[in-house]
């Protein structure tokens, strides 16, 4: 059974999609904060990323260390094909459900 996505999972996947090559903990958190106005702790971002990883929706690789991070490596995330499908399915479900109730629900 293909797993459904929770709201946080959607937000995180969308953020990774937007960020492209530059998706790691810091940028994901920042993207969600600036666009969705949701201030998440890094902990919740990571919990979600870990869950997505376990479901096979994201993949990760380690980047280069930089001095502003105290010389520590980044862990970059990209969406897998399965992830993309799950996100599309979940977005479609939302849109379909909202369609036709009232114009204000579709485009807030």
């Amino acid at each position: 059974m293909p797993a459904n996505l929770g709201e946080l999972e959607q937000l995180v996947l969308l953020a990774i999609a937007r960020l492209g090559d530059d998706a790691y903990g810091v940028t994901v958190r920042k993207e969600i904060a600036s666009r969705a106005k949701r201030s998440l702790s890094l902990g919740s971002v990571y919990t979600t990323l870990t869950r997505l990883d376990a479901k096979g929706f994201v993949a990760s690789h380690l980047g280069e260390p930089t001095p502003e991070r105290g010389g520590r490596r980044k862990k970059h995330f990209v969406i897998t094909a399965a992830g993309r499908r799950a996100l599309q399915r979940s977005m479609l479900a939302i849109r379909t459900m909202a369609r036709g109730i009232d114009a204000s629900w579709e485009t807030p």
Partner: protein
Amino acid sequence: MNERQIAPPALAVWILSHLLPHAERDNYLGDLEEIFRNEICPSRGVKAARRWYWLELLRAPITIGDRAPSEQLVPPIRGDGPVTNTLNDLRFAVRLLARRPGFTTLAVLTLALGIGATTAIFSAVYPIVVEPLPYPHADRVLMIYEREKKNETSFVGFTTFADFVRDSKSFEALAAMGQGSATLTGGDQPALLESQRVSPTYFDVLGVHAALGRSFRAEDDIRNTPRVTILSNALWRSRFGGDSAIVGKPIVLDANQYIVIGVMPPTFENVLAPGAQLWTPLRYEVSLPWACRSCRHLRMVGRLKPDVSAAQATREMETIFQRITKDHLTDYSAIGVAMPMLQDDLTKDAKPVLYALLGAVLLVLLIACANVTNLLLARAAQRSGEFTIRAALGAERGRVVRQLLTESLLLAAIGGTVGILVAVAGVKALVALSPAGLPRLAAISVNGPVLLFALAIVTLVGVAFGLVPAIHATRADLHEGIKQGSRRTAGSSRVTRGALVISEVALAIVLLVGSGLLLRSSSRVFAVNNGFEASNLLTMQIQAGGKLSNDTLVRRFYEQVSDAVKSVPGVESMGLTNQLPMSGDYDGQGVHIQNHPSPNPADDPSPFRYSVSPGYIEAMHIKLVRGRGFTAQDKAGAPGVAIINESFAKKYWPAGEDPIGQRVSANDPVKGPWLEIVGIVGDVKQLSPSNSKSDGIYMPETQWGYANNQMSLVVRAKGDAAALAPAIRRAIWAIDKDQPIVRVATAESLIAKSEAQRRFALVLFEAFAFVALALAAAGIYGVLAGTVTERLREIGVRSALGASAGDILGMIVKQGLGLAALGAVLGLIAAFGLSHVLTSLLFGVSPLDPATYVGVTCLLGLVAFGACLVPALRAARVDPMETLRAE
């Protein structure tokens, strides 16, 4: 901004780097640091950012390592990492404790009592015994005394001090000091302040200096220069509103003007005179009459040079002192010097009490632990099924032990937390109860080191009482565990529990013996004949200073006071004395007997000197043995007279020789002036009922060389003495409203206070013994109740086979009393060995007092019997049919 300031909090980073799974550690910490530097710091500031970092620590996904398959080569096993394990154990332990609220409450309260009481006592022990005094290199500060025969010590005269200062090379600074008091006027009311008169080097010796203004300098100590004073921080705040411009301003003390030159810091702890509110220079010179070598009323303290040891300094001072005494043979009775470290000297009286109390409270803690271990064992017995299943499913032995340890540590931690609340309350009670002589009272609190101690105790206790059930649980045979019903358990656990109860009883007996001995001493002390009648006797101290600037005025004031007090309704009689029994006053006077010249007058008797008004001896109801008391005719100018007491008479006049009519001198052994002994009175306890020092000599106040500027007033009331105080105060202030009246107390309360140290120990010992007894009883009860539950089937069979209810009752009671008896025997043996540590607190009772030992054994027997009875009755009521059917 420097690099360190904008870094994330190092401790939080450290914690995280240990909690995070290895695979996530680097990138997670990196992300946090990047957000910290690039987002939070610029927008909210470093402080807020550091706070944010700590909050992030709380939300960190410290179990994420378990569920990241892409990172792991080995398939994840739940509960594998050490952190996850501990968290799981903890979660399980919390659930378990929450499910058994009765058990948990009992265990937590028992532990809280034990840990709390121990922590409270330790908070008193710490600043007195462990912590160095709050001075730089406090171990270099030594007291310096003259050492008398019989290892007693005495203070030094100023001239001796001056010789030491001139000749010794071992000290950075030496200081002499005396007590004093001063009446501060200029505010709404005159205030009587305790002061300390010191050498200008005093603050150098302690190594603490004025926070505002300056400390004393050598020129402040020169007589007839403007007077100066240094204020304590408390006085500066309370009387002068913390005026920061106080330095240089004049204040009025005893009608003289003093310039304030400094204020001490708030942290300054003046252990040598804790009550002193201000300091003035000593201003002695060797030419002054009260600076003589035999005028031993100054305490001496010194700070060693860094490269000189206490032993070297003592050798040097000893040499100097031997030279001085050889040159001034008749001025010294001392045979050497004694130079203890200030801290040791200060705490030598309190130490035995504190050690005894610490010992007692540790016994209570041990009993509490034994009790909780018992509870845990009983529960472990019920849980043996659970452990068996765990083991059968593949749990290693260590894993089960860890689970049990987590539970006991959690229990100990909760108990410790509640215990700290108990300790805070306990410290308050302790300080309120503490005897006057307890040093460093202000430093007694639940502070960092004390909390660390509590933490150590909690850990120790948690591991100690967790290990016993853990070992039992894991030793159990798998087969046995599964075969047996949860009601029956391995015999080894029962043996352990029996042993625990035996040790509880033994420990309780030790405490009971201690408090029994103290109780009997206390009743002995208060049965002592003090030599005067304390009931219906009111005492207070009156001051004559300020504008009463000469002896004539002072003495007229005393006369007026006497007349006024006599006419207050309800007053039967009254008198005045320069030193009041049981009040802490101590004034000895060298006395020479005309017909008994001695080779060294410094060795002559030194009785308590009472300068009294006519009527004092009568008002106190002191027994007149022979001769006469003082009358109004024994005044200045009349022939000098004196009255001595029985012990003085007996010690210095051989049997058959009558002291009455003989002459003594308080001044010169050859020239007099001479006082004729006109009467002999009964001995009066001056220091405390248990202190046997009691030689005394009485002289009319008006015949003494100078007027005392403070006298104690004793008033014999017709009825309730305390109720007279307001009327008497009004009568005195009607004469002169500027003279302070202090130390208002009934004689009975003075006597109680003079025994405060023993009472302090007694109250605490009684409390500890009571707790110990209650815990031991609970222990006996718990074990028997457990036995009855476990043996229900056996009991059922027995009664089915014809055992009567009485037989069953007897069987259970016998088991309980057997444990108690064994414990009692061991306890009595231990008490025999240990009770001598209380010797310094006992009075009129031997540490091996048989009545005490028999009494506490009976008491314990009674309590133990009561504790046995409840489970025994339950056993006796067992219905054989029901239990057998249940099987």
